[in-house]
C-alpha cells in the first residue's frame, strides 16, 4: 500500500493540472466511462424529475389499478393507479441523496477516527480501534432496523444510521495509511519546522489519504443505496419519500405479483441495479487511477 510511489493525488501542481492528469488516466478506462454515463443519466433523472416525469408521482388514479404498460403509461400503474414511470424517476432523488450523503458522512467519521487513531497512537489508538472492532462485528441490517425503529423513519435518520454502521472499514484503511504517512520525510520536516499535530493531520495527512478514501467512498454509496432500499422494502423507509425500496414494499404487499402489471416489481429493481452498476464501474476505474500498481498489471 505504501512506499514512496508518487500518486496522482500527491500535492504537486495546481488543482486544474491535477484534475487534467486525473482525467487523462481515468478516461482511458472504458468501464469507468460507462459508469459515468450511467450515473449522469440518474443525476439528470433526479435533478429534472418534475420536467421528465409524465405525471405527478403522487397523483392517484391517473390510470386504473395495476394497468399493464401502454403508450399513456409506459410502465403501467400501481395499486392506487399512480404512474410507475414517474415514481421510478422521482425515486432517483431519494436513492442518490441517501447514497451520497450517507457515504460522505461515513467518510468524514471514518477518516477523522482513522487519522486520529493512526497519528496520535498510544491509548487513543487502542480505544478507537477497540470501538472500531466493536462496530465491525455488529450485524448491519438488524442494527439498522432497530435503530430506525428507535429514531423513527425519516431520510435523515436513515442516512445517519447507515453512516453509523459503515464507518469502521474506512477508519481501518485510513489508519493504516496514516501509520505509513507519518513516518515520511515531509511529515518529519513539518514537525521539526514547528507545525502542531493538528496542523500536520489536517494539512499533510488528510490530503494524502483522500485519494484512497474517495475510491472506497464510491463503493460506500452503492452499499448505502442498497441498504436504504432494503430498509424501505421492509416497510421502514421514510413514508413521505418516493423510494424504489418503498415501491417494492407496496408491490409485494399489494400483490403486484399476481396482478396484470409485473413492471411494478421489475422497474424499481432494474433502477436499483443500474445505479449500483454505475457506482461499481466508477469505483473500479478509480481504483486503477489511485493505485498505479493495479494499472501496470493490465
Amino acid at each position, binding site marked *: 500500500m505504501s512506499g514512496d510511489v508518487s500518486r496522482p493525488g500527491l500535492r504537486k501542481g495546481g488543482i486544474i493540472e491535477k484534475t487534467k492528469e486525473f482525467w487523462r488516466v481515468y478516461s482511458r478506462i472504458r468501464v469507468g466511462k460507462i459508469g459515468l454515463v450511467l450515473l449522469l443519466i440518474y443525476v439528470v433523472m433526479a435533478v429534472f424529475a418534475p420536467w421528465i416525469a409524465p405525471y405527478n408521482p403522487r397523483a392517484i388514479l391517473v390510470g386504473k389499478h395495476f394497468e399493464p404498460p401502454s403508450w399513456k403509461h409506459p410502465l403501467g400503474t400501481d395499486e392506487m393507479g399512480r404512474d410507475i414511470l414517474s415514481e421510478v424517476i422521482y425515486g432517483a432523488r431519494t436513492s442518490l441523496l441517501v447514497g451520497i450523503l450517507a457515504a460522505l458522512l461515513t467518510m468524514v467519521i471514518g477518516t477523522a477516527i482513522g487519522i486520529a487513531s493512526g497519528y496520535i497512537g498510544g491509548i487513543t489508538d487502542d480505544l478507537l480501534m477497540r470501538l472500531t472492532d*466493536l462496530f*465491525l*462485528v*455488529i*450485524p*448491519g*441490517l*438488524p*442494527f439498522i*432496523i*432497530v*435503530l430506525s*425503529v*428507535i429514531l*423513527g423513519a425519516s431520510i435523515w435518520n436513515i442516512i445517519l444510521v447507515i453512516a453509523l454502521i459503515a464507518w469502521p472499514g474506512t477508519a481501518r484503511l485510513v489508519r493504516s495509511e496514516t501509520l505509513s504517512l507519518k513516518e515520511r520525510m515531509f511529515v518529519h520536516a513539518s514537525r521539526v519546522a514547528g507545525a502542531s499535530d493538528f496542523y500536520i493531520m489536517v494539512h499533510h495527512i488528510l490530503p494524502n489519504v483522500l485519494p484512497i478514501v474517495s475510491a472506497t467512498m464510491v463503493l460506500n454509496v*452503492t452499499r448505502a443505496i*442498497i441498504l436504504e*432500499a*432494503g430498509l424501505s*422494502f*421492509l416497510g421502514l423507509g421514510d413514508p413521505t419519500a418516493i423510494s424504489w425500496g418503498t415501491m*417494492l414494499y407496496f*408491490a*409485494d404487499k399489494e400483490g403486484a*405479483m*399476481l396482478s396484470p402489471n*409485473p413492471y411494478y*416489481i*421489475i422497474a*424499481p*429493481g432494474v433502477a*436499483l*441495479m443500474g445505479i*449500483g*452498476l454505475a457506482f*461499481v*464501474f466508477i469505483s473500479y476505474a478509480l481504483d486503477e487511477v489511485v493505485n498505479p500498481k493495479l494499472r501496470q*498489471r493490465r
Partner: protein
Amino acid sequence: MFLFITIMFFIFRLMPGNPIGLILEQYNLTPEAAQRLIHLWGLDKPVWQQYLIYIKNLLKGDMGISYVYNAPVSSVIFSRKLLNTLALLISAHGMALLIGMILGVWAAWRRGTPIDIGTLVTALVLYTIPVFWLGLMLLMMFAVHVHWFPLSGTITPARSYKDILQYIGDYLWHLTLPMISITLIRLGGDFLIMRNTMINVVREDYITTAIAKGLPEKIVVWKHAARNALLPIVTMAGLDMAFVVSGAVLTETVFGWDGIGKLTYEAAINRDYPVLQGLFFILVVVVLLANFLTDLMYAYLDPRVRY
C-alpha cells in the same frame, strides 16, 4: 463483548412504544392483568436494576422471556427457526463459494477471452442486484407464472407425510428459491475475489516453473495455483458474517422462511426487547466465532502463519 451487551441493553430500553401497550391492544387485558405482567417482566423496577438482573440472568444462561411469544428467549431462538436459517445459509453459501471458486479459477486462467469478460460482467451485475428484489423476481417467475415452487413457508401447511423422505423432499422444495437467490447474490462477490487472486498467483514464478516442467494444465491450475489463491476468499467468507445476516433478514422476509432473520425483523417491529437482545447476543457470538475459525483456516491453508 461485555461493553456490547451493555450498549445493546440501553439502546433497546430507549425504543419508543411501550411493549405492554401493544400487547394490551392485542389481547384486551384488564389493568390488573397488565400490572401483573409488568411486575412479572420486571418492568416496574428502575432501568439500572433491570440491567443488573439482566446481566445476572445472562451469566446463568437465562436470556429472559419474550413479550410476544410468552416463552423463554432461548427457546424462541434455539428452535426450528435457527435450524431453518442454518439450512438456508449453509447451503446457499456453500454453493456460492464452490461455484464462485471454480468459475473464478477458470476465468482467471482464460483471462482476456470473451468468456472471461462475459463472466466478469455477469458477476458485477449479480454483485449489485438487491437480494430481496432477486427473490421477488424468482417468486414471480417460478411460483406465480409457472407453479414449480411454492410461494412461501418452509413446508406445505397441514400436509401429512408418509415418511421422513417425503418430508425432506417437501422441505427442500421450499428451500430451493430462497437458496438460489442468496447463492446468486453471493456468487458475484466470491467470483470476483477468486479471479483477482488467481490472476496474481498465476504470475508467480512457481507457476511458470510448473508449466515449464511439462505438468498437465489441470494439475497446474488446481494443485498449484488454486490452492494458493484460497486465502483471500476464505478470509472474506469469515469476515462477511455480519453481511450474511443482513441478507438473511431480507431473504427470509421475502420468502416467508421461518428463520432467525424474519424473527429479528418481527421482534424489532413488535418491540420484543428480550428477543432482540438475545438475537444480537447470539449474532455477535457467531460473528466472533466465525472470525476465530477464519484464523484457524488461515493457519491451515498458509503454513507460514503459525500462532
